[in-house]
């Protein structure tokens, strides 16, 4: 009887742990339950917030960044579209709770990412402070992990001194459709 109880406890704890991990999993589709492509209604329901646009719809502006909380964690959401129909194009976080399925998250070093994703396309460059003059920020590096099955989807890691400080999921900047 005691053994059965212990076994059930183990199963329960395992299920809880898996569910919790899934809540913070970073993939090409999104982060946890927040999926790219979600529209206003789905985002408002999931995040329990009312989205008030300030930029989209002003002139020809079609993108806007808003701040939101997901399970108590600060996130940045990148919206794209027009006033009537916009969707989630990208999302970013600096929370150490979020990790890829391979365990890459805040604090992971550059070499680990490179070795972990040998079968993917990686684009590495210093962060540009000024895109036009190509002036770069020395300690900050961007590593874009492009989805091998669709190069236009990416997980983008921002590193400072070769350690991840932020993770973003969204379109691969180098292969953006609309540019």
């Amino acid at each position: 009887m005691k053994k059965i109880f212990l076994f059930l406890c183990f199963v329960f704890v395992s299920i809880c742990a898996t569910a919790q991990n899934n809540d913070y999993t970073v993939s090409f589709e999104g982060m946890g339950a927040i999926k790219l492509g979600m529209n206003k209604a789905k985002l408002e329901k999931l995040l329990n917030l009312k989205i008030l646009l300030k930029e989209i719809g002003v002139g020809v502006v079609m993108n806007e960044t808003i701040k939101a909380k997901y399970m108590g964690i600060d996130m940045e959401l990148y919206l794209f579209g027009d006033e009537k129909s916009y969707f989630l194009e990208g999302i970013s976080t600096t929370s150490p709770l979020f990790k890829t399925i391979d365990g890459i998250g805040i604090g992971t070093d550059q070499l680990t990412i490179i070795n972990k994703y040998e079968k993917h396309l990686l684009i590495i460059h210093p962060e540009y402070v000024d895109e036009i003059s190509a002036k770069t920020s020395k300690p900050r590096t961007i590593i874009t992990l492009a989805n091998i099955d669709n190069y236009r989807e990416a997980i983008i890691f921002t590193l400072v001194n070769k350690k991840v400080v932020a993770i973003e999921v969204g379109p691969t900047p180098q292969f953006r459709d609309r540019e």
Partner: protein
Amino acid sequence: MKNSLLFFLAVFVFFSCKQKDKKEPVKKVENADYIISKDGINELKIGMKHTEVEKLVNQQFNFNAIKDSAGYWQDTVKAKYKEIEVSLYFERQYMDDDNSIMQLFGVETSSPLCKTESGIGMGDEKSSVLPAYEENPITMGPEYEAVNDTTWAMSKIKYSISVKDDKWDKELIFHFVNKKIVSLAAALIMGE
């Protein structure tokens, strides 16, 4: 006893300092004639006209692209630049209605004599490339191989690292097989 102790202490300090002075040996490029960069191999520069390249390598090129006025616009020729074998990639230029001009848009070699300025060459590993180009944009990933006329598959052994210039105009490409460099190439970056 005190003197001996002082002596040993002095010897210890001396050798500690010597150890600190030792630096990692800097790889030296043996032959400056074969230094490869994003611009080409020494005098063999990306963007040269085929007539200039012919003069430099002392060889007359036989382009299919020029022969066939309707079809080809790119062509590859093998040549010898000084002591090394190179593959030269040309592209037809359509300037001033003169389509007989071929421009060098890429050069590749597997010669062990050819190295980058920092000494990276054949047989070196991936880990030696990245620290040398921290300021540059880099793309890296497995290469694709043709399985048949219509299908390509990701190679399990071939990999490449491409170091771009800031404007993404030119690139220096390191080709790997089983994690070792097997060829180096300089090329113009072709748009999508």
